[in-house]
């Protein structure tokens, strides 16, 4: 019983190391899949225990440091996300990895994520955060050094800011574990309310919140700090990206929730509220809103499949941040619900991209086309994923987006509501661009003999697609879990229905009526005359005959009009800003090296003399 949490956290790492050492083709896949399945099994088994007792607690003392781990409802949900999507990603990796190097670091990052979700004190939280970052960095390093460097730099920035924040907290509060920090800050807030001077001053709180925001913002891919995500997500083994973007970005989101848990009341007292939302939460929400729009629009303009889905996952994380930022109980539940659904359909999408890249070996849109006939299973999965991500009623994407809309708009936030609505349309836009360029239209001759998905990938995709559909038709399943976090019944309604007072959504009813609608259309269709299949070249081209040598599909630059309409805004790019800063720092270092540390001894002697002189004058 005691080391159950330890098993959940460390099995992936251990199996990873074993797989790395053994390095036998068939065996290491089996071990790694086992390594991902065991924590999932334990988590499912832990669900019963959680119904009886509020949480499972465990602590170890190593060399004077006391590491505590706690599994309660919120961390159980996030752990389950990591478990399910991690398992699917590992299954996917079974068919796309080429050497054992990737197994080691993929499972290491999985351990890191488990550690973060189950950690109960800041030190273990930070350690596992570093393990996760290191694991994912090594995965990217293997494929593309420059992308991994950019990712490494920003993660280091995040890690240092988090370390600094933990240091300040430790100095002020004196303890590291979450419960004591929460109590002391809660009392501090009460003391503030009563008027006596508080433990932490105003700009202390500002500093801590800023640092935590940067730390978690980097990982979640918030707007100003999102530049690493497109390169990191696309320059690595694609089925690992399913875990990378589906699960690891949830760590950033979990961090935001940690801010709420630890510092929530204190910040709310310190900075007050705008309308219903806490002021500090509104910052997160607004940045999340901008992330939706920026991520979505950039996704529509990409020419590379992986980049498109990288930007799209940034944009979806933006939804979650908006949910968290608004701060009402319903909106946080909606945000977590969207975290679950995002993990599901984004994991599914990256597995689909992995299949395409594995089978065709191409990643640019202009080299692909007409794969729907050749890869029917993958296309069926893509169809489910598209319906889910674009937010079409019967699937989970719509349930979580609907909850999010209602929560945000109910909190009287017109600007945020507008941003979210714009985001939902962008989902349509870049998905159809992807489907058109890859699945429909004229097939280049070299793609003519592509086979369908390998078995493990198919199973992985099957799991995620099934969950997408099940949680879509029966949103109540997830709602009951979410209500457990806050204890009270926020989302009422049966297993098929979400009822939040001012809005009701019934997944089952919509599916039934959609099916009847399609059946009616089908009846009209089949009453008509027989249908003759026609090749691609037998088409309307102003009456002219056309052969396969002509390029009949708009694969490249599909959204040129959008690019021209946004030409003014596209000039501002944070990616180039960071590159310029990087170059500026390099030049500064260059000048320093030339003039100050130029290596001849006389110069150093002179520096010594001057410093001594200053000290003497200063009369030290």
């Amino acid at each position, binding site marked *: 019983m005691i080391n159950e949490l330890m098993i959940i956290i460390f099995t992936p790492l251990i199996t990873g190391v074993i797989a790395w050492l053994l390095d036998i083709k068939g065996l290491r896949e089996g071990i790694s899949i086992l390594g991902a399945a065991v924590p999932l099994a334990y988590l499912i088994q832990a669900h019963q225990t959680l119904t009886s007792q509020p949480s499972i607690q465990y602590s170890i003392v190593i060399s004077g440091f006391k590491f505590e781990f706690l599994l309660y409802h919120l961390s159980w949900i996030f752990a389950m996300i990591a478990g399910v999507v991690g398992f699917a990603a590992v299954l996917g990796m079974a068919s796309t990895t080429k050497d054992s190097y990737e197994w080691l670091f993929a499972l290491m990052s999985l351990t890191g994520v488990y550690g973060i979700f189950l950690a109960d004190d800041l030190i273990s939280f930070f350690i596992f955060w570093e393990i996760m970052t290191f694991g994912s960095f090594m995965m990217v390093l293997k494929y593309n050094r420059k992308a991994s460097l950019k990712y490494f730099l920003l993660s280091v920035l995040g890690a240092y800011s988090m370390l600094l924040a933990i240091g300040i907290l430790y100095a002020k509060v004196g303890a590291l574990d979450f419960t004591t920090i929460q109590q002391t800050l809660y009392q501090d807030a009460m003391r503030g309310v009563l008027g006596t001077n508080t433990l932490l001053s105003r700009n202390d709180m500002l500093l801590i919140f800023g640092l935590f925001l940067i730390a978690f913002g980097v990982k979640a891919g918030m707007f100003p700090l999102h530049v690493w995500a497109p390169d990191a997500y696309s320059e690595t083994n694609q089925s690992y990206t399913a875990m990378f973007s589906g699960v690891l970005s949830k760590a950033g989101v979990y961090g935001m929730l940690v801010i709420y848990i630890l510092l929530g009341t204190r910040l709310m007292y310190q900075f007050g509220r705008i*309308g219903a939302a806490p002021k500090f939460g509104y910052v997160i929400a607004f940045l999340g809103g901008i992330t939706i729009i920026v991520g979505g629009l950039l996704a529509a303009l990409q020419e590379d499949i992986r980049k498109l889905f990288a930007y799209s996952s940034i944009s979806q994380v933006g939804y979650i941040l908006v949910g968290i930022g608004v701060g009402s109980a319903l909106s946080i539940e909606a945000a977590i619900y969207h975290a679950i659904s995002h993990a599901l359909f984004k994991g599914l999408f990256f597995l689909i991209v992995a299949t395409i890249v594995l089978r065709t070996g191409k990643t640019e849109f202009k080299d692909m086309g*007409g794969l729907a006939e050749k890869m029917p299973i993958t296309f069926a999965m893509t169809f489910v994923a598209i319906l889910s991500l*674009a937010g079409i*009623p019967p699937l989970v994407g719509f349930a979580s987006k*609907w909850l999010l809309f*209602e929560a945000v*708009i*109910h909190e*009287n936030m*017109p*600007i945020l*509501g*507008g941003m*979210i*609505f*714009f985001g*939902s*349309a*962008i989902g*349509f*836009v870049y998905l*159809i661009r992807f*489907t*058109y360029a890859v699945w*429909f*239209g*004229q097939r280049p001759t070299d793609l003519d003999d592509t086979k369908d998905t390998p078995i493990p990938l198919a199973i992985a995709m099957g799991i995620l697609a099934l969950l997408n559909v099940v949680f879509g038709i029966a949103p109540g399943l997830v709602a009951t879990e979410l209500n457990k976090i806050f204890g009270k019944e926020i989302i009422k309604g049966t297993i098929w229905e979400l009822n939040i007072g*001012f*809005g*009701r959504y*019934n997944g089952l009813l919509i599916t039934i*009526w959609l099916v*009847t*609608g*399609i*059946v*009616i*259309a*089908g009846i*009209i*269709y089949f009453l*008509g*005359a*027989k*249908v*003759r*299949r*026609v090749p*691609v070249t037998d088409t*309307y*081209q*102003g009456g002219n005959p056309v052969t396969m040598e002509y390029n*009949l*599909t*708009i694969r490249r630059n*599909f*959204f040129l*009009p*959008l690019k021209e*309409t946004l030409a003014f805004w596209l000039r501002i790019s944070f990616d180039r800003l960071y590159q310029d800063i990087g170059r500026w720092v390099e030049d500064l270092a260059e000048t320093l090296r030339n003039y100050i540390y130029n290596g001849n001894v006389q110069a150093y002697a002179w520096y010594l003399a001057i410093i001594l002189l200053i000290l003497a004058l200063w009369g030290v």
Partner: protein
Amino acid sequence: MITSMIGIALKAFLILLYATFVGFMFMGIIRIVTARIHRRVGPPIYQPILDTIKLLSKKSNITHGLIYDFGVLYALGATILALMFIPLGSISILRAYGDLILITFLLEIPMLGIMFAAMSSGNPWAGLGSQRALLTLLAVQVPLGFAIVALAEFYDTFSTYQIVMAQQTAGWSITYLPLLLAAVAYDIVLQAMFGKEPFDIMIAPGEISLGPMVEFGGKHMGILQIQHAIALFAETLFFSNIFLGGAVVTAFASSILNTLASLGILLIKQLAVLLIAIFIGAIFPRFTIDQAARFYWKWPTIIAAAGAILAAL
């Protein structure tokens, strides 16, 4: 349990028949009114029905693959689904679940189904048409979003039926300034959703010979005609419900008279909305797609955002 099921099924069938018939009449009205503006006689009012029967009765049809057919069926299915949610006087079925955001999404999803079918035909003209349709959708979403937000915040509920009920007592929603602004923005958006003149960029016959529709032959085009009819009916009904006060008549004794009266009032309001769209459509040339996007992101967005902010205060 069974009898209530059959009752619902029958009511649903009646609503569907009524909606399709009135939708075709609306299409006929559009063609006649435009013809009269052009100083010509114009076709009989039942012309769209004849067109659909002719299209459905074609003896040979072509297909470009499974998705080419399924996209069209999906579009009609989604429109029928959307129709069931919008309160039609007092006889709508899924009225309790008629949620603002759900209906707005369902009215856009047929566009997705048609895009899927058109693109799978692999015709460059269809590709160009879908590119324009998607950008129109993207452009339209911003003012539409703010209009829905304004409505939701003003009435503090998302259920269309409750909004209709609130309007019965407190008067039409366009009498209040924030919702008037939202209604103006929504009406410009409707111009694009009907595919009328300044924004019929998706199916510009002169430029890209009917865009996505270029590859749709006999029965596919017939199904799309039915979908267009129901969509016309659903969109005007939705607009007249949320902005022009819908109609819940309880004056008469028998319920049949009540429903007939409310349908009548609704019909008048729907016709008003339709005629506005026709008149605007008859006298304006066509935008190009980036001009339309810039236009939608400038004026209707400002109007709708102002409405939303005023409603939030």
